[in-house]
């Protein structure tokens, strides 16, 4: 990871290294965007094939919990933005606190998501489970495959984000060094990306009311 060694290097090399790290992360996010983008596009394609069954399936989701989770994730983006702001400033003590808050909100999101998964398991909606509700038609099962895959891929990315954020926090706690600004900025970029993915997933999956009449 690229850190600050401001005392030992010139401002110019520091600026160059920061650019390099940012560019690397942006290219990575471009790749990630293609992953989630094609996933979402495939889902939309299938939804055009089966508009009614997908509306029926979507009605099974816990929209209230999904909304709550959206609010939590948006708040975590705020704390992440504050962490980046703190890391860029002169009084950088706030950065680890905000990062810790961000990770905590991420954990809260995953907990609620896990509870949702548990509810869906309870309602026999898991399509590859032998005890699934026999009334689920194949297109409805297809919706749930997409749902679990899309939200699962998102949750996995979020989990990775939480681990990285905690690792970055620990730089400050366990060593005498300050958290490098570049590191916080890069983690922030990644975190916001994962949030934006959710902003697309939420309406796609939860708020679909069926074909317009």
């Amino acid at each position, binding site marked *: 990871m690229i850190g600050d060694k401001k005392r030992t290097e010139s401002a110019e090399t520091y600026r160059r290294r920061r650019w*390099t790290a940012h560019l690397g992360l942006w*290219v990575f996010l471009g*790749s990630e965007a293609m*992953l989630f983008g094609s996933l979402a596009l495939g889902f939309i394609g299938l939804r055009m094939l089966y508009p009614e069954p997908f509306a029926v399936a979507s009605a099974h989701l816990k929209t209230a919990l999904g909304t709550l989770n959206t609010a939590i994730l948006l708040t975590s983006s705020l704390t992440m933005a504050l962490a980046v702001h703190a890391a860029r400033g002169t009084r950088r003590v706030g950065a680890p606190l905000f990062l810790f808050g961000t990770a905590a909100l991420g954990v809260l999101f995953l907990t609620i998501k896990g509870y949702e998964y548990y509810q869906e398991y309870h309602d026999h909606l898991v399509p590859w489970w032998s005890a699934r509700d026999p009334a689920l038609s194949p297109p409805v099962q297809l919706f749930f495959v997409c749902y679990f895959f899309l939200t699962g891929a998102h949750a996995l990315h979020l989990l990775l984000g939480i681990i990285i954020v905690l690792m970055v926090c620990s730089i400050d706690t366990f060593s005498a060094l300050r958290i490098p600004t570049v590191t916080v900025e890069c983690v922030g970029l990644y975190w916001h990306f994962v949030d934006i993915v959710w902003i697309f997933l939420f309406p796609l999956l939860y708020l679909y009311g069926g074909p317009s009449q």
Partner: protein
Amino acid sequence: MNEASYLAEGGTLRQWLTTTDHKKIGILYLFSVTFFFLVGGAAAALVRTELLFPDAYLVTSEGYNRLFTLHGIIMVWFFLIPSIPNTIGNFVIPLMIGAPDLAFPRLNLASWYIFLGGGCFTLWAVISGGIDTGWTFYTPFSTRFSESRVLLALIGIVFAGFSSVLTGLNFIVTTHRLRAPGMTWSRLPLFVWSHYATSVILVLATPVLTLGLVLVGIERVSGIGIFDPKLGGDPLLFEHIFWFYSHPAVYIMVLPAMGVVSEIITCFARRRIFGYTFVALSSLAIAGIGFLVWGHHMFVSGQSLYAGLAFSLLSYLVAIPSAIKVFNWSLTLYKGEIYLSGPMLYVLSFIGLFTIGGLTGLFLAALAVDVHVHDTYFVVAHFHYIMVGGTVTAYFGALHFWWPKITGRLYPDRFAKWAALAIFVGFNMTFFPQFLMGYQGHPRRYHLYPPEFQTLHVVSTLGAAVLAIGYFLPMSYLLWSFFRGPRSGPNPWGASGLEWKTTSPPPTHNFHEQPRVTWEAYTYDR
């Protein structure tokens, strides 16, 4: 070997396996892709031997399916895609732009380990029974019917994909950020331009393949119809996802080869490339338009006629930047002081074979003609002209051209010429008959065939034997050269690129002092 060279420093196995030096990682890749080339080549040899006779005599039909699948998977993901970028590109890109290493050296090493991990899964799949789906994994065969090791192979390919993305990312950032003072975009060697375009495809197309293959895995394990029409899925969706990656993947394979051609042809024609800007931008155009042509693999799959029309037209468009390159290379030769060295012969045969491959691609992009030749040997011949006649020939050309830089040794040029000739003759003997067979309606991937095709099949198999000799020759004399070859100076070809300004082999940090570029690319003209 001079004392400051990267080969002299840190020579233990442990130091090699933990190196972050782009040059050493390039050599690690060289060993791995050579290994996979031999595995994939052995499968091809068995396929060709089996096809000597119309009836089964060597393998069962099951075994035949597994052989051509093995050949396809290994050659596409474990040889062709990493071949030029990860070996030659890894080695020379930082040297060409005057950088001490790639932007993320540790990521580069990680990418090699991930690649090896993917290779292990794929080899495991092969050893534990093989895969019989063809390299395309079409559903629902791959998800419901195939009883082979599809999952293992899928995991292997997904890993190889991650490795590709990391390499592409590294090249993009390196090209943007690590150019030496004075190395402006308009002075960038065309090899770097073409790798930049390749990297954009690697980064943007590979995740889509990952997605498609993971979905195939989910459908196979869970029995939920994502792609299987019987279970409510959409088989065309898989084809869309697969070809959205796999058509651009063709450009991943051929764009780096085009970069090699631009480097070598200017050096041995002693001329600045004709139309530098056009050649550079045509790489980006190929990468861009290449994303919009995938539907031409699906003309007979039942996609809408209008989609077919659009994809046909777009496929014609992608021929324009390719033709720009071929014309500009030809014009570079015009009035040049052409020196027919070994590397130059490889490059000249690339141009001829690529042109045939490209023009037959236009046959296939025409809707009506494609209905006739779809899924026949015509297609097989077409893409082998691009991938083997094009990419593999350029790969060998590149290996010969940069060999003195990589090892600091020379090889006997006479042998290089004979090998280039053997490859050219053997290749045409192998694949030209396949155009004829395909045009007469011989379907691809068939184990048994009507006896009237036997003559052409025999010619093709004999050609493959000549081709194999052509490939083994360089492996032997280059190995000899590594240990016994005469020492090379920094610039044995009198080439103009920055990589030739440093010693051969280069020191660990590439340059003894920070290079400053004050000249344009390819300053060969008097």
